[in-house]
């Protein structure tokens, strides 16, 4: 079925008033530096044709270096870090680039089954040019020994698609005496003017 006027082919717009410059640096939100390995995560948001998605909102959230979220529901007995909240946002630039400074999150247990551990990951929320391009996903770190054991990552059944959720260590992105660099590009699906009723 087709509807070129569908509202979902357009989407919310964001601008400079929607982010503050500090939002993209998760290590500068408190009085002192958070514990952990400082990292820079950078990448491009592209559409399926490889065109940059410009000026759109990218939001991230993550556990601290000990694997604990600043959330009442997180019962993992690992320490909270008074200098780390773990939430950030930025707008993509004219070439579609986003960039965050943060610390590498820790793995954490989640009681899904016996000895269930989530590999280190950063949650991402991304807007495209259309509401139908909305994406919420998770970024993983290369060579993490927990990746094969994680049912969340393995909910993506195609191996090549799973690989697209794993960032690459990028030595050129590492800042001397400061942080290690990880590169992770995001490709948004759609939008298409055709739709189907879900599951039918």
């Amino acid at each position: 079925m087709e509807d070129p006027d569908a509202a979902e082919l357009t989407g919310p717009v964001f601008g400079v008033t929607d982010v503050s410059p500090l939002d993209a640096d998760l290590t500068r939100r408190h009085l002192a530096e958070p514990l952990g390995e400082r990292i820079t995560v950078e990448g491009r948001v592209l559409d399926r044709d490889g065109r940059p998605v410009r000026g759109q909102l990218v939001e991230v959230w993550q556990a601290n270096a000990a694997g604990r979220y600043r959330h009442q529901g997180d019962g993992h007995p690992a320490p909270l870090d008074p200098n780390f909240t773990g939430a950030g946002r930025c707008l993509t630039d004219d070439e579609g680039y986003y960039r965050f400074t943060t610390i590498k999150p820790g793995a954490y247990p989640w009681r899904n089954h016996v000895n269930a551990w989530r590999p280190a990951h950063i949650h991402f929320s991304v807007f495209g040019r259309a509401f139908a391009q909305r994406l919420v996903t998770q970024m993983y770190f290369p060579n993490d020994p927990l990746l094969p054991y994680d049912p969340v990552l393995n909910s993506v059944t195609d191996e090549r698609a799973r690989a697209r959720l794993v960032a690459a260590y990028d030595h050129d992105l590492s800042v001397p005496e400061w942080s290690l660099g990880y590169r992770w590009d995001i490709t948004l699906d759609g939008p298409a003017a055709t739709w189907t009723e879900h599951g039918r």
Partner: protein
Amino acid sequence: MKPTPSQTIGPFYGYALPFAGGGDIRGGDIRGGDIRGGDIARGGITVHGHVYDGAGAPVSDALLEFWQADPSGGLRGAPGTLRRDPVTGAIIGRDGVAFTGFGRTPTDADGHWTLRTHTPGNGYISVCLFARGLLHHLYTRVYLGAEPSGPLADALTPERRRALAAVEEREGVYRFDIHMQGEKETVFLDFA
């Protein structure tokens, strides 16, 4: 290029994504549009409901996002949904002049959500639902007329079409419950 796969929003997004005033799209430019009751004398409308799982239990950690046309049917939107206080960096929200068209609200402990907005000129509000039990978010629409019309509504059976219509509980207050699965499953849309 191959798309990046979706992953569950998980249980811990609550300190990152929701923000004060996220469910209040009102305020802003409401010119145009032949809106019923002058869009309830310009105070706008309230749309609310529960999110239920397949067993009929309320979902207390779902996140809903809304995208809609302004009262004249325009889908341009505007920046400023997350506008900041320049001193503290806290989100102070929309400026009351521009109609941003975007809202976001989590469900409460009872699985309930509330949206305050203006009547969209095209007749419906687009909804995107996230929950920890979903690998991929779900899209639906809230139609505000008694009988949804348009390409989507016309393609549905009368029963499914009516399921997309919010129930007007009293003037300007609409109810729209979302059933993630089961017998009463909401009409969800795949855009592919």
